[in-house]
């Protein structure tokens, strides 16, 4: 029973604490600096959450299974370009092209990683570069700007003060993932694949099939993020830089996911992504210089990753056991 509690603590506390702290800061700190928090601030925060959440989900799904998919960066770029090219007359067509194209590439990648038993970190670094190149080639010399004004306006319209179709789509997909993982056997299977793959395979989990599916989803989600983002910006970006991956990783870590896999929940990930998005918006409201935000962000990552460090935990718990043993010794000796 207590072992269960120990596991749950990290899964539950960290995302709750992160989200609560960030929300608190978001609501309170601007006032302290003479800035206002308005409906628009929350809207902007959720607008930032829209692509970030999808990338975080893409990364998170494969992370729980014990893999690390760097290629989400490339998928985002490719998705953006595909959508811009195919969505000129009908916005939906562009989105479908992005999701299908990136999903297919994700499938190929997933099958290769699963069948050949490859370590995903290095392979996806390679496919990330391949995708950037592919994006570049497909974009060619034509303009990257998106002519379908109707679609651009539609994705960003304000709904219920705080939301837009983009953020609602992200939230909707998160809910779908939540249901999928908790109500079906896929949830425990992914956890098994991430925490003890050999045991999972021996139990009968179709590991290769699940991994291929996860990478397909990862690609499709990142492609979707890129597509909607390019609609919003009315232009595609050839290279989003490392930013989206770093933010998604921060979201995963704050969301209670373990970097070595096998641990974490979807709603924890959701809270983590919201926390990161609100934090970003907070920095924007306070108009902090980039150097400050980078220092804060870097320090945050450093602290969280050190806390997560497995050997630090064994060292500290070892010290605690030692102290307890010493105390018992003293008690036993005194008559």
């Amino acid at each position, binding site marked *: 029973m207590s072992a269960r509690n120990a596991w749950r603590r990290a899964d539950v506390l960290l995302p709750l604490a992160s989200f609560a702290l960030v929300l608190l800061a978001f609501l309170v700190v601007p006032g302290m600096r003479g800035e206002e928090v308005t409906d628009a601030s929350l809207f902007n925060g959720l607008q930032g959450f829209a692509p970030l959440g999808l990338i975080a989900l893409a990364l998170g799904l494969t992370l729980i299974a014990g893999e690390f998919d760097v290629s989400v960066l490339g998928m985002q770029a490719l998705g953006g370009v595909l959508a811009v090219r195919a969505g000129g007359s009908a916005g939906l067509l562009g989105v479908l092209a992005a999701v299908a194209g990136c999903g297919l590439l994700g499938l190929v990648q997933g099958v290769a990683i699963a069948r050949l038993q490859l370590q995903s970190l290095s392979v996806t670094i390679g496919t990330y570069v391949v995708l950037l190149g592919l994006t570049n080639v497909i974009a060619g010399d034509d303009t990257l700007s998106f002519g379908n004004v109707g679609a651009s306006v539609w994705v960003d319209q304000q709904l219920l003060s705080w939301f837009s179709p983009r953020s609602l789509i992200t939230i909707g997909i998160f809910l779908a993932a939540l249901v999928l993982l908790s109500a079906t056997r896929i949830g425990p299977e992914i956890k098994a694949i991430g925490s003890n793959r050999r*045991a999972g395979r021996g139990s009968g989990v179709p590991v290769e099939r699940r991994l291929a599916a996860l990478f397909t989803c990862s690609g499709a989600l990142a492609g979707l993020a890129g597509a909607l983002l390019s609609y919003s910006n009315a232009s595609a970006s050839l290279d989003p830089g490392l930013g989206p991956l770093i933010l998604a990783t921060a979201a995963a870590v704050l969301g209670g996911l373990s970097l070595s896999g096998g641990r974490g929940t979807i709603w924890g990930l959701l809270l983590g992504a919201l926390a990161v998005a609100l934090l970003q918006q907070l920095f924007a409201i306070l108009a902090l210089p980039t150097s400050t935000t980078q220092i804060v962000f870097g320090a945050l990552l450093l602290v969280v990753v050190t806390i997560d460090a497995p050997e630090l935990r064994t060292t500290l718990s070892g010290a605690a056991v030692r102290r307890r043993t010493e105390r018992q010794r003293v008690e036993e000796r005194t008559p």
Partner: protein
Amino acid sequence: MSAPRLEMSGITRSFGAVKAVRDVSLRLGPGEILGLCGHNGAGKSTLIHVLAGLVAPDAGAIRLDGEPVVLHTPRDAQRAGIAWVDQELSLVPALSIAENVALGRVDAGLLRHPRRERADTRELLAKVGLDARDPDELVGGLDLGTRQLVEIARALGRGARLLILDEPTATLTDFEIERVFAAVRRVARDGCAVIFVSHRLGEVLELCHRVTVVRDGRVVAERPVAELSAAQLVEAMLGEQLEPAPPRGPNATGERLLRVRDLSVGTRLRGFTFDFDAGRVYGLAGQVGAGTSEVLHALAGLLPAATGSAELAGRPLGLRHPVRNRGRGLGFVTNDRKGEGLFLGRSVAENLTATQLDVVARAGQLIPRRERRHATALAVHAGVAADRLDAPVGVLSGGNQQKTLVGRYLLRDDIKALLVDEPTRGVDIGGRAAIHELLRAAADENRAVIFASSDLDELLELATTVITMRAGRIVGVYPDGVSRQTMLTDLTHGRA
């Protein structure tokens, strides 16, 4: 006459040039418990892996209850009603018992029904004697014996017609072994056929109805247990009579070398105090959880929770400083050679010299010729084929791997104490004798050799002094020999 439960005919499988299994045929009826014996490399693992769906045979056919089956994946095996439980267990510690029981079922639908899963699990747990367990408990918190039982329960729940237990008892206490045996007998009574693979001949003779011996990939003997003795079994496995171990020389006792005072590790080890002398082989006798492994790991400096003090040749050892202890003359061989012992991808030579880099270097720079010569000398000394020095150590057999680990600490005058945890786990009879010889020789060179083992035969053969332990404390010290009965009593609460 009804078809046999399991019929394997003409199974052949090679790995490269190695013919692991040659034209093996096996037959097993419902409710029968078959013991499968053979030393490492004899082919029994391959046979089992074929049944488990991990390896496809090059030739041959498998029938279950008369129906031919094709086993390409573990899922195929599950569908066919074959359950394989091996030492490393296919349970995921991060999930609960109920989740593990339901994990990967081939006949399950997409949706989960947690309440039904829990109820079904409770039923199954009762069948193996675990009725008091909460199905929501995480498997990670269970001890090994309980986990074995959970796996057997899971096999039952999947309607297993054939249950394969692959070396299940090596890491279990006597009490747990009895529970597993009880569960297996119950399962067999209900009609399930069982294959019990084990090195432990005593257990095989106790549990099984028949025994099949495999050697060099072929079946060399198949007899009912009633017609077989342990000696005959060994002879069949090795193809020759085993020489009795040479009588041990007079107990030479050198100076007091290692003083341990009040060594404790939380609740796993309490107040271990002992003085070890040079020239003797000390056997720490204990089952899993007795604290024997903790003594060695703590002395090596690998347990942050350890308290107490220890002194080697007058110099204090650091209980959290493996580097310092290594420098002060302590050699440590782990029981987990794949996880914390060997550098699997590196060559045998590099593994041998890993703890001897100062010997083969000058001013921080390695001298290739010296390293080569030294590695060859170590290999010869340890009994590892010197022509395999450049092969990655991962391809060696268990026995040779273990010899490599011990070999690391040979040919050094500055190693004063050699600590070995489970010296011959997963090693066949031939390799075992060689490793025991190595350890004896190490002690003769004026060292203190301290090993931990749960194998009573090994303790009787190898140790000059036996220290029995239970529940983290020393129970008895026997510098002049001890009977098997006494050891067993000490280790198990007085139950014979």
